[in-house]
């Protein structure tokens, strides 16, 4: 589904990703872990099409298409969804109007019928239950005045409505208390299907207790230094990122 080969990217001439390779297949959950400044959010931004990053090398294909050639909205319509680390407040843009417009753009791209407001509201009702989301939030402006937890839940709610094939969760656990974390993770788990995939980007192992990954990758200085199964996350939690760094250094000396 997603094939990242030797990807290098940076911002303002400073290289952040440095030859990153990763393959994600349908049905898989991948966790990207790494210390601060390792390039986790840059990876999420490059995949979603953030303009400020400059790709300097490598390739990314998504279901056979050259992802890097696509505009952010084309990526979304092709099935990529980024759950923002810091969801943006957009005063004056109604949540429901926005989300229906977004869904209909994605449906148009898939040659599905657009939903009218009644059909959309039915769908919304069903999906809000999944996230225990207060429906009155949806009559407000996008994220405006939402608490930190409400913003994160709203991200996953949008994901539930848009039904992406590849969801990228960028530090979705940051700022969440344990109850909110369980709700958010529960939502993500219910959305898992054999034909979609999830990329969980996180600093801490905590989230991975609830969203159990098939693969864990350790990102350091812009490249993946170590990959393994879910037990790698626990080992990282116990031994810290330095342990991976030392391991890599030792290998280099061998």
């Amino acid at each position, binding site marked *: 589904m997603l094939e990242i080969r030797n990807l290098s990217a940076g911002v303002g001439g400073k290289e952040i990703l440095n030859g990153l390779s990763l393959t994600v297949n349908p049905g898989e959950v991948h966790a990207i872990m790494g210390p601060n400044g390792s390039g986790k959010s840059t990876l999420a931004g490059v995949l979603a099409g953030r303009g400020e990053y400059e790709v300097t090398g490598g390739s990314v294909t998504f279901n056979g298409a050259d992802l890097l050639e696509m505009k952010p909205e084309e990526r979304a319509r092709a099935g990529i969804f980024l759950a*923002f680390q810091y969801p943006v407040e957009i005063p004056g843009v109604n949540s429901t109007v926005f989300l229906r417009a977004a869904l209909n753009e994605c449906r148009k791209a898939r040659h599905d019928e657009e939903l009218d407001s009644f059909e959309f509201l039915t769908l919304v009702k069903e999906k809000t239950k999944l996230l225990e989301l207060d429906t009155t939030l949806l009559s407000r402006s996008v994220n405006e005045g939402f608490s930190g937890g409400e913003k994160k839940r709203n991200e996953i709610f949008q994901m539930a409505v848009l039904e992406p094939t590849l969801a990228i969760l960028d530090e979705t656990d940051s700022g969440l208390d344990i109850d909110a974390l369980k709700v958010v993770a529960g939502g993500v788990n219910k959305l898992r299907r054999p034909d979609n995939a999830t990329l969980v980007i996180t600093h801490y192992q905590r989230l991975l207790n609830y969203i159990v990954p098939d693969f864990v990758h350790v990102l350091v200085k812009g490249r993946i230094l170590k990959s393994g199964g879910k037990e790698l996350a626990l080992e990282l939690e116990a031994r810290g990122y330095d342990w991976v760094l030392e391991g890599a250094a030792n290998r280099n000396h061998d």
Partner: protein
Amino acid sequence: MIDALEKSLDAFASADPRVNPPWLKSIREAARARARQTGFPNTRQEEWRFTNVAPLLELPLHAAAQNGRQVSARDIEPFRFAPDWPCLVFVDGCFRGDLSSLPPRESGVEADSLRTRLNGNAAELQNDLARHASYDANFFTALNTAFFQDGAYVSAADDAKPEHPVHLLFVAASDKPGATAQTRNLILAGRCSELKVVETYASLTAAPHVTNAVTELVLGPGARLEHCRLQNQNQASFHVATVQAVQEKDSHLLSHSIATGARVARNQIQTLLNAPGAVAVLNGLYLGRDDQLIDHHTVVDHAMPNCESHEFYNGVLADRAHGVFNGKIFVRRDAQKTNAKQTNRNLVLSENAIIDTKPQLEIFADDVKCTHGATVGQLDHEALFYLRSRGISAAGARQMLIRAFAGGVVERITMQPVRERLDQLLAGRFDHAQA
């Protein structure tokens, strides 16, 4: 400049003397003399620093008259809001009774052409017409006072609460460049009446034309008046407007100035809070693109205690457009317990667009609450990316954010068909603008 001024005055001097009862004649003569003294505005004058109206004088100015193309009901249909709203239609400054529908007698509202009224019994006009909009310092108001030929007279009786707003529609249709309509409107809201009036200014021609409109609003005690100006004339034309309101005790004015048209548009929106308990809400939206210049000069004059004013002006400027906002608030010595607020927000979509914004507060009372604020910003890139990352096109995302920016102003308009018209207008207006 003197020659040009003489030319601009003489262009109208031949206007029809029939709309000239003796009491008005002396006012007109005084106004004409005053216009001559004041002179045509230039950018060395503080009030006109940013707004150069001199190119207007390059046009072959002449009094607009109904002698050009025939305008039919079908031509004006797109400008109407609802079939049941009374609508007075003026083509090139002249009333067209055949295209108009007047309010029913039982609504308590009278509406007519001012010219017709002046020709007949003008007594009911004498106390108010040309009594409120000062021509002392404003050349264009003086010019209008001296030479206006027609316009609308709307009067709501005491306690009248008509079901529908009154629509005043002014269209320019002449293909001759320089056709000038000097429109004069008088709107009276009687004691405790509730009246809504929409003035639309539009073009059915691409020729550069000139509008110099003055509207006087008189709000009796306890009256509620919603007055909406919607100016969307062609981008070759010049539009100068003065709205002067006078508010009696406990009256409530809700004024909207929506300016999207003309090459140069200058709007003076002014209200005098002349008795305690009066409330004025001045709401405005200007949408400039290409080389347009849209100027609002507002004056809120707190002359009496315990009055309130709230002013919200938002502007969106693209391309090389130039916006001007100058908001004056006077709080006179007697106007204790005044509560006055003013905000001016601007969204600038291009590096070459300009906004000059200036609050001007002159406060002579000591127990008052006055606040003002002005902002100038661009579209939020993070918000744009957020919307696009959900599948919305770049153009769609920009449109959503522009609509959101204008939204507060649009939503203060209580007339749904007007809001819808504005939404349509907003939808395509900045599609070409760069993110």
